[in-house]
C-alpha cells in the first residue's frame, strides 16, 4: 500500500490563497493604495499639514489655489488643504468605529439566529425586520435633535442602525455551513456550541462580512458627511469634509475650490473603499479563481 505522493513546499494557507487572488485584482490594489494614502494623511496630519488647522490668515481670505495654498483658503483665511487633512481623521474614525459597532452586533445576532434556528432565529430576524423599517437617516436626525451632536454619538447611532445587513449575511452563511459535513463532524466529536461556532463556522463565514464591512465604511463616511453638511454632525470650527462643503456652498460662485476639494476628498475615499470591497469580493469568490 503506497500512499499518493504529497507535494512539497510552504503550506498554502487560506490567507495566502486569498492574497494571491487579491494581488492580481487591479481594483483591489488601487483601492488599497488610496486607503493607505488616506490613512497616512490622517495619522500624520499634525506633522504634514502645512498650517495650523485653525490658523486664520486675515490677509489671505478666499485665495484661489496657488503654490502657497495648494487648495486655496476659505472665507476666514484658513488653509483648505490643512483642513482637509484634519477632516480625514473624522471620516476614518467615524467610518471604522461605526462599522466596528455594526459588525460586532451583526455577527453576534446573526450567529445566534443562524446557529440556534427556530425560535431564536424567528425573534432575532423579526427584530431585524423592525429595525429595517426605520429610515436610518431620519432616526439619526431625530437622535441628534435631542442630544448635542458629537462625533461619538454619530458613530454610535450609525453603528446601531446599520448592523441588520451583516446579521442577515452571517445568518445565511451559518445556515449554509451547517449543512456541511465538517459541521456534523464537529458535533460528532462532542464539541461544545461555542467551540463549534468560533472554531468551525465563524472563520468560514467572515469573508462576505469583510466585504460588507468595507463597503459599510464607505456608507458610514457618506452618512457622516451628509450629517455634517446639514449642520448636525461635526460642529465648526472642527473641520470635517461635510461641514467644509456647507461652508463652501455660500461662496460657490466666487470660490469653487471651497466646495470642490472637500467633495473630491469624499468621492475619492468612498470610491477607494468600494473598490477595495469589490476587490476582496472578487478575490474570495471561488468561481473567479
Amino acid at each position: 500500500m503506497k500512499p499518493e505522493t504529497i507535494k512539497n513546499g510552504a503550506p498554502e494557507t487560506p490567507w495566502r490563497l486569498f492574497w494571491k487572488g487579491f494581488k492580481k485584482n487591479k481594483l483591489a490594489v488601487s483601492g488599497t493604495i488610496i486607503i493607505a494614502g488616506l490613512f497616512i494623511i490622517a495619522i500624520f496630519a499634525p506633522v504634514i499639514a502645512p498650517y495650523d488647522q485653525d490658523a486664520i490668515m486675515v490677509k489671505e481670505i478666499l485665495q484661489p489655489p496657488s503654490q502657497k495654498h495648494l487648495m486655496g483658503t476659505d472665507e476666514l483665511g484658513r488653509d483648505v488643504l490643512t483642513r482637509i487633512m484634519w477632516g480625514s481623521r473624522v471620516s476614518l474614525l467615524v467610518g471604522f468605529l461605526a462599522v466596528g459597532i455594526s459588525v460586532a452586533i451583526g455577527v453576534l445576532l446573526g450567529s445566534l439566529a443562524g446557529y440556534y434556528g427556530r425560535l431564536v432565529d424567528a425573534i432575532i430576524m423579526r427584530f431585524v425586520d423592525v429595525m429595517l423599517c426605520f429610515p436610518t437617516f431620519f432616526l439619526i436626525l431625530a437622535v441628534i435633535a435631542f442630544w448635542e451632536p458629537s462625533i461619538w454619538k454619530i458613530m454610535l447611532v450609525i453603528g446601531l442602525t446599520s448592523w441588520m445587513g451583516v446579521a442577515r449575511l452571517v445568518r445565511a452563511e451559518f445556515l449554509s455551513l451547517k449543512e456541511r459535513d465538517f459541521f456534523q463532524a464537529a458535533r460528532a466529536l462532542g464539541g461544545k456550541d461555542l467551540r463549534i461556532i468560533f472554531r468551525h463556522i465563524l472563520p468560514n463565514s467572515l469573508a462576505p462580512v469583510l466585504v460588507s464591512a468595507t463597503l459599510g465604511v464607505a456608507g458610514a463616511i457618506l452618512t457622516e458627511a451628509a450629517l455634517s453638511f446639514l449642520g448636525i454632525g461635526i460642529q465648526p470650527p472642527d473641520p470635517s469634509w461635510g461641514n467644509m462643503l456647507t461652508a463652501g456652498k455660500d461662496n460657490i460662485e466666487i470660490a469653487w475650490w471651497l466646495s470642490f476639494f472637500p467633495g473630491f476628498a469624499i468621492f475619492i475615499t468612498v470610491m477607494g473603499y468600494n473598490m477595495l470591497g469589490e476587490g476582496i469580493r472578487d478575490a474570495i469568490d471561488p468561481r473567479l479563481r
Partner: protein
Amino acid sequence: MNNLLEAINIKKYFPPQGGLITPRGKSVKAVDGVSFTLGREETLGLVGESGCGKTTLGRVILRLIEPTEGLLLFEEKNVFSLSKKEIRSLRKDMQIIFQDPFGSLNPRMKAGSIIEEPLKIHQQLSKQERQQQVSNLLEMVGLRAQDAERYPHEFSGGQRQRIGIARAISLHPKLIVADEPVSALDVSIQGQIINLLIDLREKFHLTYLFISHDLHLVNHFSDRIAVMYLGRIVEMSACETLYNKPLHPYTKALFAAVPIPDPETKKIRLTVSGDVPDPSKPPTGCHFHPRCPYVMPICKGNYPLLEMKESGHLAACHLY
C-alpha cells in the same frame, strides 16, 4: 456475546414542507422502523439505493439527527434518552467517517489541528503529548507527521479521507459509522482506504456500521449485510448466505445489477424498472411491489414483516 449496539424500531420522519401558502405535503419517512443488532467487533454492511435512508439511519444512530421514535441501546445505555451533556461524553465511543472528503474537513484548519481537536475536547493532555499523538495517528493512516502543518485543500481526496479517518479513530472509539467512506474516491484509492479500515479494525477492535451502495465492497468488508429499501430493512443475514442465496427480489436485483468481469458468464438478469418511489408517498403494502417481478396480490395490501426465513437469514417478503 452481548451486543455493542441494539437498535429497536428506529424511525425518523422529516416534517413536511410547505404549509401557509403551498399545500402541506406528507412527512417523509426516511427511516421507518428499523431494528438490528451489532455485536462487538462485528461489521454490519448497510446497502441500498440512493435515498433509501441509509445515511439518515447512520446519523440518527450518532444522534446527529434527532430520531422520531425508537430505542437505541449502546452498551445498555439508551442513547436517545441521554442529555446533551451525556451524549457529548459518549462521542468518544462512537465516531463517523463521512462520504465527501472535501466537505468533511474544515478548510481553515490545518490537518494537525483537525486531528488534534477531539483530543482537546475529551482528554487532558499536554501540548507535546497531543502533538505526539497527532504524529502517530497521521503515520497510522499512511500520511507523514509533517503533513500536520498543511491545509485540507493541499491534499488529494484519498489523503483527505485518511485525515478524516485519523480524526475518527483518535479517541479509540468502539463504534465507527462509515458513511460511504470510499464512494467519492477513485477506484485505485478505494482499495487503499478499505485496506486501511480493515487494518484499523484489527488494531483497535472496532465495530463498523459500513454504509455503502456497492454490494461487492460490502460483501468483502462486512460480517453481515442489511439491505435497505425505502426506509426499511428488507433482508439481513451473514455475508455468504446473502451472497449465495439472496431471498428478497430487491436483493437479487441489486446483485444482478453488478457487472461481472467475465464474458463467459451468462447470467439470467433480474431487472427492476423505474426509480425508488417518492418516500413521502410510499406504495401501499410492500414498498417494493410496483417494481417487483414476482408481485402477488397480497403484496399490494400488507407490508411483509422482517422474519427469520432460514437460520440467521431475515427477509421481509411474502414469497417465502
